[in-house]
């Protein structure tokens, strides 16, 4: 599946772009409306960009009454990204989404670098959300942790169904003339090609640590990038920053994937899945019960 990365597409202003994806992921929705951070809130960096949008969103009430009915008309699966400042806030939003058949899945954004992060651990948030909804729960993690595999295992044990890897990393750029921070809040989240090796390593580690399906993202620009993420262990891939320069990126990337597969003699992406991993050590199962010989 090809998705958009949360916060990198508004399906209501660009419905034709959303329809070119297999599912649409919303910008993170929080309990209360948020204006986001003051401008300036984007800047180009070396091979990437910074953003400090700060989770601008209408809040769950207006999302449910205003946005969701209009999103449902797009007739593509809707994933709702959920954020908050305490585990109970995530749980509250999840329970309010639970009755809405038009919501295909929930992504728990436990990793936005632009707001004071929730003090609870990812696992506690997943556990509270799990009690509040039957929807598939995807935990969106940050790579800025010492052992992302351990965080992934904890999320799995808490009841997550999948992982979204990765969110942006904290970064700083300075204005060329004044040498002051380009962004109003000074630091922002780094996305784009600079993030790709970090994201691939996270996917690789989480594939080895858990058996959950993974949505890989971070600097995906081309069909080759998609193959890399799938080979590292991602079942699905999301486009973020690439959509800004090129709203036609989904169809272009799909065409490039077909060419890349063909050039390697593969018939589809399943042939590439997890091929970056060593011949899986000819062990039958890992400690977490995952069967490794595929």
């Amino acid at each position, binding site marked *: 599946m090809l998705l958009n990365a949360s*916060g*990198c*597409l*508004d399906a209501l*202003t*660009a419905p034709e*772009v959303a329809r070119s994806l297999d599912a649409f992921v919303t*910008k993170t929705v929080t309990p209360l409306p948020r*204006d*986001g951070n*003051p*401008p*300036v*809130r*984007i*800047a*180009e960096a070396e*091979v*990437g*960009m910074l*953003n400090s*949008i700060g989770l*601008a969103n209408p809040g769950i009430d207006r999302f449910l009454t205003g946005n969701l009915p209009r999103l449902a008309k797009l007739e593509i699966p809707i994933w709702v990204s959920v954020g908050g400042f305490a585990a109970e806030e995530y749980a509250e939003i999840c329970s309010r989404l639970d009755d809405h058949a038009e919501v295909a899945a929930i992504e728990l954004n436990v990793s936005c670098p632009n707001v004071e992060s929730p003090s609870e651990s990812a696992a506690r948030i997943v556990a509270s959300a799990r009690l509040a909804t039957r929807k598939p729960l995807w935990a969106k993690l940050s790579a800025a942790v010492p052992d992302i595999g351990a965080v992934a295992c904890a999320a799995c044990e808490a009841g997550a169904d999948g992982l979204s890897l990765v969110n942006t990393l904290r970064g700083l750029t300075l204005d*060329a003339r004044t040498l002051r921070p380009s962004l109003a809040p000074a630091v922002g989240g780094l996305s*784009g*090609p600079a993030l790709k090796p970090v994201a691939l390593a996270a996917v690789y580690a989480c594939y080895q640590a858990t058996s959950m399906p993974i949505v890989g993202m971070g600097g995906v620009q081309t069909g080759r990038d998609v193959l890399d993420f799938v080979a590292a262990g991602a079942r699905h891939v999301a486009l973020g*920053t690439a*959509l*800004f*320069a*090129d*709203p*036609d990126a989904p169809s272009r990337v799909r065409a490039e994937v077909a060419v890349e597969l063909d050039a390697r003699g593969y018939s589809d992406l399943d042939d590439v899945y997890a091929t970056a991993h060593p011949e899986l050590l000819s062990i039958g199962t890992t400690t977490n019960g995952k069967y490794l010989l595929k």
Partner: protein
Amino acid sequence: MRRERLSVVASERVGPYTLLRVTRGGLDPGIPGQFFMLEAPGRLLPRPMSVCLAPPGELAFLIDPIGPGTRALCGLEGGDRLAILGPLGNGFQLDVERPLLVGGGIGIAPLPYLSEALGRPPAVLGFRSDWHAEAAGLVPDAEVCVEPRLVTELVDPDAAILACGPEPMLEAVRALAPTAQLAWEAPMACGYGACYGCAVELDGALKRLCVEGPVLCS
């Protein structure tokens, strides 16, 4: 909104600015005040540019080389190709009586196309130097002033004002003529509502300038 790879027809110097002329392909030139996102060679993000002129088969952009993206665009030569997305945003409302175009510096960029659409109404333009003022030649019937004189000294507040220029100029025009149509700027990553980067404060809330603007009527 449509994205195409187009060829540079020519790149002409106009004072410190560059008039980048590209083939139009299948792109609609849009309404004056609307903009396009231009791929800047070697940069990750495209740059927003107003349509300056739209002669048959072409689109032309007037570009001020102030940073890496605009310098890369000004360095393009005939035959080079670049991806262009648009037209985007909301342009000027053209059904006005007694229009007066007001421009400052690179803010004159959308005025040649606007002037044509409105049947060459009067225009007043302000520039930092005589060199910058060479760009005034692109706007018919323009009265020009150069700093330290300010363009607002030439503004008739009773006319229907359509203005583009640096923020202090726009604020001064708004103070003189509260109903003026003003074309604003903000840093933009996408130009089509995807990134929420171009937020500006409107009616007490942050809104996306690429969706609500760039032309705003107060």
